[in-house]
């Protein structure tokens, strides 16, 4: 396949030192992804470059970063399709920086975990397929891959450190939509406050960057509708 060279301008930071950008020249072919280009840099040019990766196919969520200013998964971002002579690679925003392109996901998970969403969902299967004998019901992993792209793109998360954020709120909506034996009232109470679902500006930046069809902004709107519906129900109930 035809090879080409592309410049990568990569954000660098080692603890105790000043952040900077470093430029590398990389040979790429029509299949090279940003993640593979970074691997190539680490392997052939600079063993100190640190970044997160695991699955290489948009299913683990570790390789979230900003490429040319846009939140993406590096493993499914094709270099030549970016169409820029220089590719700028930076870590995600709204998460503490550990080193280079590595951010600390502790805060993300601390906000996400309380939603209590199981990894397995019960909905959305091939509609015409029968459940095999011996299998209770079809199962499939939830959509959200916990990549943090939405949180990085969210302007409210940037200004309100207490904001639960799009991923956590989307997980909360999944628990209301499909409680799987849990009580939706608990999770609704958890999001019903000024740093919860009411804080969102509804500009859908999060849904735009989500690589896994979660539509967090849509979920937030659904949470608001559900809370409003329940509150109206309570008003009439009380009378």
């Amino acid at each position, binding site marked *: 396949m035809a090879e080409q060279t592309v410049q990568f301008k990569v954000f660098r930071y080692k603890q105790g030192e000043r952040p900077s950008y470093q430029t590398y020249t990389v040979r790429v072919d029509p299949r090279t992804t940003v993640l593979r280009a970074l691997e190539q840099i680490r392997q052939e040019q600079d063993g100190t470059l640190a970044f997160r990766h695991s699955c290489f196919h948009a299913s683990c969520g*570790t390789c979230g970063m900003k490429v040319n200013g846009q939140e993406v998964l590096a493993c499914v971002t094709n270099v030549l399709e970016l169409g820029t002579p220089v590719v700028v690679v930076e870590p995600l925003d709204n998460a503490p920086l550990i080193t280079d392109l590595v951010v600390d996901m502790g805060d993300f998970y601390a906000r996400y975990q309380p939603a209590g969403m199981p990894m397995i969902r019960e909905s959305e299967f091939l509609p015409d397929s*029968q459940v095999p004998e011996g299998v209770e019901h079809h199962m*499939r992993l939830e959509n959200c891959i916990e990549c943090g792209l939405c949180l990085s793109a969210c302007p409210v998360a940037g200004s309100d450190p207490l904001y639960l954020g799009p991923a956590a709120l989307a997980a909360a909506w999944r628990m209301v939509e499909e409680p799987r034996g849990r009580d939706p009232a608990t999770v609704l109470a958890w999001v019903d406050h000024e740093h919860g679902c009411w804080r969102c500006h509804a500009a859908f930046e999060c849904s735009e960057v989500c690589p896994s069809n979660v539509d967090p902004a849509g979920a937030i709107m659904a949470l608001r509708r559900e809370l409003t519906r329940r509150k109206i129900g309570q008003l009439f109930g009380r009378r």
Partner: protein
Amino acid sequence: MATFHVLIIGGGATGAALAHDLALRGLQVTLVERGEVTSGTTGRHHGLLHSGARYAVKDQESARECIEENMILRRIAPESLELNDGLFVAITEEDVAYRDLFLEGCAQCGIPTRELTREEALRLEPNLSPDLKLAVQVPDGTMDAMRIPLRFLATAKHNGAVIKPFTEVVAILKQGNTVTGVRVRDHRTEKEYEIGADIVVNAAGPWSEKVAAMAGVHVPIQPSPGVLLALRGRLCNMVINRLHRSGDGDIIVPQRGLSVVGTSSWVVEDPDNLPVPEDHVQLMYEKGAEMVPMVKQAPFRAAWSAARPLVGERGATTGRELSRTFKCFDHADEGVEGFVTITGGKATTARGMAETTANVVCQKLGVDAPCRTREVVLLPHTAYYVQPD
């Protein structure tokens, strides 16, 4: 009981399960991983929770390990597995002819099977090829390649283990013929420091030969990569396997909103920076489409390579001739004390590999503590990142 310190090199499925096992047995554990945890082979694997059926004819030791661990994982990692079973599908008369051997092998290994007619199988999986002749149902499943190891690590952390990602072993320290610890480079600072240990375990997967060489011992590992192809959309709910001798592109694992076709097999010297040969990607499309024709139309999501850590001397040609079982080496046998290597195996069998290794470690240290990992239900994967280091 004096607390011994065990240092594990490698944060893949094997190292993660071992950290969990040893922490449960009351040992002090430190795990070092040069990148993010599961950044080696583990995170990149196919996501198949093996029933063992794939190995039931040619590699029965591995098949037995798989079915046993498959059943244990269902118990200790609930709500993390897509348990829709799998189908072995016969597309040609040659595949049909393989059925008896396959059923016999599964029976010998204790893998439950259910024979399905063409029509029954098509009702379960309507996207199967119209050329389908028959199918056999087995307890295959789908696992999240990263999140199962994260559950081991989360539980290990909870029980006191220290997990250090972005920490690369650059040297193994010895006093005479005894390994006493490691020198690591912390990639967050690029500073080096030493960590002492009573025993060092090399769980570096396809890198374990390189790591063992730092201690001056040889581990016969043949890094054997395979290509995987992820397509958008779920083409099936069950794992689809071709009913034949293991070959290329003969498994489709549905996972989340993706369908993953794999794999191929060749051998390399260096498990880093693996190429993704274009002809292998095309082979995945072709072979995958023989089972599920829609593979050819489904939108592309990703193609990548991962390297198996197969146990066997270099010189194998495709890697398929090597067993998928694992091996634990106590290097005292070669005159180096305090150093153990665990490698080979499958992600499915990581817990079993850890049990065997922890037994060796405990025996060497004179620690009498039984393995508890068959029963202890793992913490959710989210707990890995939430718990402070």
